[in-house]
């Protein structure tokens, strides 16, 4: 069965690159570029892995992450948080909020692919 990834990211070219990489590896990729309705989109589009950007229009990725972890339905969803801030304190915030893994931009395609595979248990 094809595993799926949902990408919540407002940068279309980044979405395109991630989609290309994951699609070639056999993943089904869907994307959404807004923050304010991201939680609803996640609930309505179940996926094996969520790639979530922090800086989103309308709502921050941190808030979305926090709400998803508070919901039993999405508490255990593997979430890869993408952030431009790579300081230790930002990593701590992401970990406390429940991110499965954090990756800073710019990222390596191979590392992103490896992380998604690992989180999905592939």
């Amino acid at each position, binding site marked *: 069965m094809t595993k799926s990834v949902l990408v919540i990211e407002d*940068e279309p070219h*980044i979405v395109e*690159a991630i989609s290309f990489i994951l699609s070639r590896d056999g993943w089904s990729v869907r994307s959404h570029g807004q923050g304010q309705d991201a939680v609803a989109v996640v609930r309505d589009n179940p996926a094996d892995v969520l790639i979530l950007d922090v*800086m989103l229009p309308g709502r921050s990725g941190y808030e979305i992450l926090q709400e998803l972890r508070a919901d039993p339905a999405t508490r255990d969803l593997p979430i890869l948080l993408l952030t431009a801030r790579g300081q230790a304190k930002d990593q701590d915030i992401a970990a406390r909020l429940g991110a499965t893994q954090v990756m800073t931009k710019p*990222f*390596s*395609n191979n590392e992103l692919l490896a992380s998604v595979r690992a989180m999905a248990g592939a």
Partner: protein
Amino acid sequence: MARQASRTSLTGTRIRERRVLAGMRQAELARRVGVSASYLNLIEHNRRRVGSELLTALAGALGVDEAALAEGAESALLDTLRTAAARGAGEGADAPFGLRDGDGPELDRIEDFIGRYPGWAALLAAQHGRIATLERTVERLSDRMAHDPHLSAAVHEVLSAAASVRSVAMILHETDDITPDWRERFHSNLNTDSLRLAEGAQALVRFLEAATDAEAALASPQEELEAWLDARGHHLPALEGSRAPALAPMTEGQAELASAAARQMALAHLERARADALALPLPRMQEALALHGCDPPKLLAELGCDPARLFRRLAALPTGMSGLPPVGLAICDGSGTLVFRRALAGFPFPRFGAGCPLWPLYQVLAQPLTPVGRVLALAGRPDQRFATFAVARPRQPAGFDAPAVWEATMLIVPQPEAAAPAGRSDGTPMQVGTACRICPRADCPARREPSILAQEF
């Protein structure tokens, strides 16, 4: 103009140093100025004060300017060095250069140090000021890096573009079987995002350069304004007369007013100073000063004006005006924050934080609209006296739903030029300090933090 007699150790020490520099024996100098060698010895060891006539004679015999032997100019230097020592003690720095832990500057020898090594003392004070400025710059830039929304957006733009460029470049490099459509699409994305990256980086550099230039100037807009006024003796001739000057252009292109905030504050200052000049025109002030001298109670009776306006006006008149000695001015808001300072030699203001709580400037906040006059002596310098006059009044009347905005103003006049203010019939000056951290008064009920000087003693 009657001159104040010299004060404590600075003058005596300085006389001795100048004599030694001149290669003159004590007996020779004493003979030249008409005193005994033993008396001169007492003077040089700070056990006798020097009268004004003798000070003139000594300066002449030593071939120096009297100001070089005077003490007033060193008050600010003294306080700066004490502040530098306090800073070093507070930071708990490791003992440098072979000093043992717990050793520090010899605070009881500061005056001797200034007298013996004026150049080194000035250098140390200047370096301390420079360090403080740099620390504030770093603090401001760090705060801006962390909290400036425009900077955050610019950084995000650069990193997002960089992330896209990197990801796409890797795809193009590592995907041997990429279809022509994808290749073309990714090349287009690369082109667009590389342009974003270049423009974003340039914007970031411009932003940081602008921030650095602004912050590398004087530490705060208030200090920029005060420096601008100090450079002009606090008198702005364009504000005098009946013709209304254009005020905004007066703040443009001024080297001291580097920041927009400083220019804004300068404009507000000019507006108020212009209003003061219209209410108390220069000819009227000249007449009143000729009649009463710098005696604020008599001037108020003569001019019938608001006391705070009179104090501001006196501090904005031309230097050397007949009947007007050098004066200082301090203005604080209802929180006690000093919002304006015109320094007076011998009565330094703290560069950071509030002044001595005993200043009438703060006392009048508790009794608004009631002027207070006090003769003050700065702790550690008992022979140097200042007549102060203060009043607090609202800058903005309180409405039913809005609080009043209070402001206190204090005029400082060296004695004996001003008449002793009423209120202390025994003529005893009130002992005050500059700031608690560097004040030697151990038993002051208003002390808010320990003094490094008390710790030393």
